[in-house]
């Protein structure tokens, strides 16, 4: 049920974001989504790709420090309160969200969010028990043409 997310360290200066993306593109790997967290001094680029093992190799060979993290993709109703409902479930279960970002892909009336939890397995159990749809890699990537 979990997705593999690649993170890499970037210095916060012009032009730094382009290089890793170009490296991935040159390897013919399609980027599913990304999120960039930044401070005044540095940034962390988080990537979801189908061929994460290959992407990781490409990035590491090019000299980046790559971190592999398991994240959870959740299908939410794309209407007011859709996210609030999911958050309520997580909150009442006492689960801590490290960060979250939206998946670029939409499916009809659904939006997909990527969650980073301390404990992804427990989060999946809780989300499923609440009737929320957790999207696994196979399903997620099958939507991408």
């Amino acid at each position, binding site marked *: 049920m979990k997705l593999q*997310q690649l993170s890499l*360290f970037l210095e916060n200066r012009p032009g730094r974001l382009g290089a890793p993306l170009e490296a991935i593109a040159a390897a013919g790997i399609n980027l599913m989504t990304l999120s960039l967290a930044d401070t005044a001094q540095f940034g*962390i680029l988080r990537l979801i790709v189908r061929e994460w093992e290959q992407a990781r190799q490409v990035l590491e060979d090019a000299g980046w*420090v*790559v*971190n592999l993290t398991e994240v959870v993709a959740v299908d939410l109703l794309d209407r007011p309160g859709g996210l609030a409902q999911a958050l309520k479930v997580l909150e009442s279960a006492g689960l801590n969200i490290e960060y979250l970002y939206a998946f670029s892909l939409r499916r009809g009336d659904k939006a997909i969010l990527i969650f980073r939890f301390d404990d992804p397995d427990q989060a999946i159990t809780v989300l499923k028990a609440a009737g929320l749809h957790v999207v696994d890699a196979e399903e997620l990537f099958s939507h991408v043409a």
Partner: protein
Amino acid sequence: MQTELWNDAAGGFHPASAPDFLPAERLKEVQLRRLRAVVSRAYEYVPLFRQRLEARGLTPDAIGELADIAKLPFTIKTDLRDTYPFGLFASPMGDIVRLHASSGTTGKPIVVGYTREDVDVWAEVMARTFAACGLHRGDIVQNAFGYGLFTGGLGAHYGAEALGATVIPVSGGNTERQLMVLRDFGVSALCCTPSYFVHLIERAKEAGVDLKGLPLRVGVFGAEPWSDAMRVHIEANTALKAYDIYGLSEITGPGVASECAQQDGLHVFEDHFYPEIIDPETGASLPDGAEGELVLTTLSKKAMPMIRYRTRDITRIIAAPCACGRTLRRIERIGRRSDDMIIIRGVNVFPSQVEAALLQVEGALPHYRIILTRKSGLDQMAVEVEVTPEVFSDKVGALEAVRARLAQAIEQICGIRVDLRLVEPRTIERSEGKAKRVIDQRAI
């Protein structure tokens, strides 16, 4: 009866400066007598020194003439660390009236002690320093060297008082207050680190204080190396003459050597501190005029005699007579060191200290480099550290925490706040052999 502090009849020189003008032969007699005494004292009371002499089959009787000093073993900075805190003291604690400390190479400070006599000698050499810089009774001296464990503040303070000048113990920092005192108190002389004074010049401009219109006529600058370009900059922006002074805590603090009105080399107060130049690689003695490492022996120190202390400062001895009339030999201004020590705002920092801090936090040594810059006259130290897989995280908070821990460890060990930057892997240049760890971009 009032003590005569300043003697007009002596050509305007302070009587304390008399030893500056000793005939060379007389000076050598004084040096030899004092050298024999200090070697005997160290032999008797400092176990480390005694062991080293015995290992060479020597006793203090080996000193028959001044040149015999070359037979004696060197003392190095790590000896102070290894015997921390009081292991090199030659006086019982009951006779020690003062302790100072400065940063060492691994985080442990180096501790130095003074007897009453030592404090008096220190005040004397600092009075001679100020006199050589053209100060006398009636001058108002703003002392912006830091007061505290650092020897600069109290050393200059006692010297200015011994000279009979009025001393204002402002200590370091608080630029607003420095400018207020400078403007309102009729200050004629200022002592501080040269980089701090360049900062003061900038701030005075911003605050609309016209330094050229003030009675300020003498600047006594030390505790860090500075360039001739900096002197030109300082003198062009003020009405003062900028003098270089030299000293180190291990020997006494400031007051080891000073420029005179000629501003052409620093006279070593060699009746108290005997200078030699050695080849830093082989340790062989070099003649006057040759460039090498300065080695100093304290000829009159009681609490902590230093025999042939290796300063790591590279200079040469100028034996030619000086136009000022002083017979004391001079050393050239210190431009570089034989080790990799860097001096930032008067604080000594070794790259090895930075390494120790990085190692402590990360467990392994990452690639790093130190970048020194000067921002409106103040030295800044940045440390760039390459991110390693071990410390990298996808969480911003975790990375910020690593950065904070690294910065804190460096500040704790080096005693200086640094701008710590995490940088991408493989962005710091690798070089064959010894990596260029320090990039010094300080100009003016």
